[in-house]
């Protein structure tokens, strides 16, 4: 297809190559390390679930015990496999014994690694059977009841109470929503464990728990049958428990997960080593399970300027794409993010937004681009806000976005009310229908505002990526080049949970999850 922006694809190739080198460089670091959250993920995937008497999740109890014994470099998989060999029990039974204080998992006699690995096989198989069944079920739904057209209408629910969320989510689906994201409660991302069971108390969001996932999945399947459209479920695979939540999402058939290689570092001050190692484990899971990941570039524009720093968004999209390639994530599961966040008082701001959105589409033609609405410049003037959202919707249909996170007129005031979602879905449907083929019809003036802007941003992104390649990603983040936020290599939350792998370390899941088309 001819570029509407007259982009120089040699620059695109160069940027992509820099990003690939950056990701490879990081991968060397990642491959040498593991984290407590990665190890807890392995236990969850082996079937460990539930909590001990004082509500500590069993995956935490077991990993903490291994860590305290200084045995984490060998990996939880070995210790669990060995415990199966020595006791003949299941991973869940073993974890319960550890939780009850009856077993020290590292104090058992030890078997060779191959024997431990073999003992895990039936449990790994059971998990893959379950995940494969979920994948088949999604495929069956999509085939039988179908789905809405792109851009998918994507809205959030955030009441704090999962049962109230269900009411809101089903209402949104009936109004036309295609994707429901359950926003996580304030501060869950810094918890170094995943809470357990159904929850009814959250602030600005609802706890991400496996039971809550199950409750919402069931509700969306029901309403999907009713409205004759598969309704996708989204949650956050981010924060300190990033890969564990990806595993929960795999087991409970989430369809979309927010998952970014850098977001947690910048916006939650999570240690960079921790996040980069964690994102790898989460992405291999996401890739296998047919989940669309959403990267979080849009957030840079809340702390940085959308006009001056647009190229950091593009650069980060390249990096997120290349990390995804390393985790074997198919292109149509790459929900690379960007946002409509320019100051609405900017002259020709609409043209600049349009330029950026079309550019993202041309650079990543097969990605499931996730487009985020105006947030920072939304105000208490809900009437103007509704108009800002309309312009955002116009850019989306024009540039062919895939996942459209709908803007809410009340964005500056509160998490959405039921009527806000209705108004925003109506807004989007009106514009998407009325302007359906605008992108096919309109071409841009050669060397005009739209084209020139795209060239400028792409060139700057390419230059930034060249710099990042030279300095390395860690150093770039230390210098505050993304989102204008500086984070130290050894600072932030969760560094104590990072550990160098020992010689005998093994993670039986990586290769299995990577093994798909």
């Amino acid at each position, binding site marked *: 297809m001819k570029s509407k922006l007259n982009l120089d694809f040699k620059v695109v190739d160069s940027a992509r190559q820099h990003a690939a080198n950056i990701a490879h460089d990081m991968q060397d670091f990642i491959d040498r390390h593991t984290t407590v959250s990665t190890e807890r993920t392995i236990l969850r995937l082996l079937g460990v679930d539930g909590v001990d008497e004082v509500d500590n999740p069993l995956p935490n109890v077991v990993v903490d015990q291994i860590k305290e014994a200084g045995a984490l470099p060998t990996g939880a998989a070995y210790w669990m496999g060995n415990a199966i060999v020595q006791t003949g029990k299941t991973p869940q039974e073993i974890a319960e014994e550890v939780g009850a204080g009856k077993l020290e998992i590292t104090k058992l006699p030890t078997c060779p690694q191959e024997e431990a690995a073999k003992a895990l096989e039936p449990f790994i198989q059971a998990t893959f059977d379950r995940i494969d069944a979920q994948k088949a079920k999604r495929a069956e739904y999509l085939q039988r009841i179908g789905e809405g057209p792109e851009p998918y209408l994507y809205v959030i629910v955030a009441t704090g109470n999962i049962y109230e969320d269900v009411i809101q989510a089903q*209402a949104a689906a009936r*109004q036309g929503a295609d994707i429901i994201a359950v926003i996580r409660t*304030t501060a869950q991302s810094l918890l170094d464990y995943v809470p357990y069971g159904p929850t009814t108390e959250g*602030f600005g969001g609802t706890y991400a728990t496996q039971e809550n996932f199950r409750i919402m999945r069931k509700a969306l399947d029901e309403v999907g049958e009713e409205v004759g459209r598969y309704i996708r479920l989204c949650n956050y695979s981010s924060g300190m428990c990033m890969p564990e939540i990806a595993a929960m999402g795999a087991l409970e058939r989430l369809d979309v997960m927010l998952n970014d290689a850098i977001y947690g570092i910048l916006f*939650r001050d999570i240690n960079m080593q921790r996040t980069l190692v964690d994102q790898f484990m989460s992405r291999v899971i996401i890739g296998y399970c047919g989940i669309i990941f959403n990267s979080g570039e849009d957030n840079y524009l809340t702390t940085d300027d959308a006009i001056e720093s647009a190229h950091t968004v593009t650069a980060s999209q390249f990096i997120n794409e290349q990390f995804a390639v390393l985790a074997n994530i198919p292109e149509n599961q790459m929900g690379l993010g960007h946002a409509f966040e320019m100051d609405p008082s900017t002259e020709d701001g609409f043209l600049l937004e349009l330029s950026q959105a079309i550019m993202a589409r041309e650079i990543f033609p097969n990605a499931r681009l996730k487009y985020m609405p105006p947030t920072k410049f939304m105000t208490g003037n809900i009437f103007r806000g509704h108009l800002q959202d309309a312009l955002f919707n116009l850019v989306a249909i024009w540039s062919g976005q895939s996942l459209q996170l709908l803007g809410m007129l009340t964005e*500056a005031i509160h998490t959405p009310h*039921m009527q806000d979602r209705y108004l925003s879905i109506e807004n989007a449907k009106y514009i998407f229908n009325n302007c359906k083929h605008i992108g096919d019809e309109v071409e841009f003036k050669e060397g005009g505002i739209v084209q020139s802007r795209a060239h400028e941003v792409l060139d700057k992104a390419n230059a930034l990526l060249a710099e990042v390649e030279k300095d390395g990603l860690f150093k770039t983040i230390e210098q505050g080049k993304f989102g204008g936020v500086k984070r130290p290599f050894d600072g932030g939350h969760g560094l104590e949970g990072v550990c160098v792998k020992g010689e005998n370390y093994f993670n039986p899941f990586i290769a299995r999850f990577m093994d798909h088309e």
Partner: protein
Amino acid sequence: MADNKNTAIAQVDLTQVKPYGDALNDGKVEMAFTLPVPYGEEAEECAKQYVKKLGFQEPNVTYYHELTPGFTFFVVYGSAQQTIDYTAINVPKVEGTVMDRVECGEWIGEHIGRDIVVVGASIESDAHTVGIDAIIQMKGFHGHFGLERFKHVVPYNMGSQVPCEELIAKAKEVNADAILVSQTVTQKDIHIIQLTKMEELLEAEGLRDKIILTCGGPRISHELAQELGYDAGFGPGKYAEHVMSFIMQEVEKRGWQNKPNIADR
């Protein structure tokens, strides 16, 4: 024609004001809300009666729509009857004169004769830094430079999700004159809970009258701040110069010019 003149341009009576649509005292108000009732004519009537009960006359449901079975959305017009005595209104405002950045620097030099030290953070569960950054960081917000750009001001910005205990410890360590707390998330009044915790901890440490305590955020007003035991509160449209004008005049009022150390206050 002369007769019409009085009625044509009725004068507003500020002791009895009510909403204005296109004629004085028509009381016109537009409302939008949802009722948890099934869509239908009964729903329309229910909205009408509800608005009447709120005190509006001639309620007119101009639009209603089913959001989901059991929930109906309405747009309703009505004529308000209640009036307010505008002349009797009293809004608590932050005391003192507001000076700009340069004036603040000079004023501190002249009246305080030493640097003013402040410590700020977005506390507890709140991860929003843009508000506190707008006040403290050099670049400021909307063309208003932050405290880092002020002469004779030494600001420390601790970022977000800072536990109250840590913020207080830092204030003690650097002998802060004032603490700046930012709160953005307000769902289920979490900001009230966290702001209260901060105030109570400071009280418990015996520091409440030794440090000026201020807060700010999109849903913070000076009145709310005072109710929560803070010295001042700053909402939208307030910038570094507003909070610094208050703090420096308060430092003078309290006679802390020669008391840079908390222990001496």
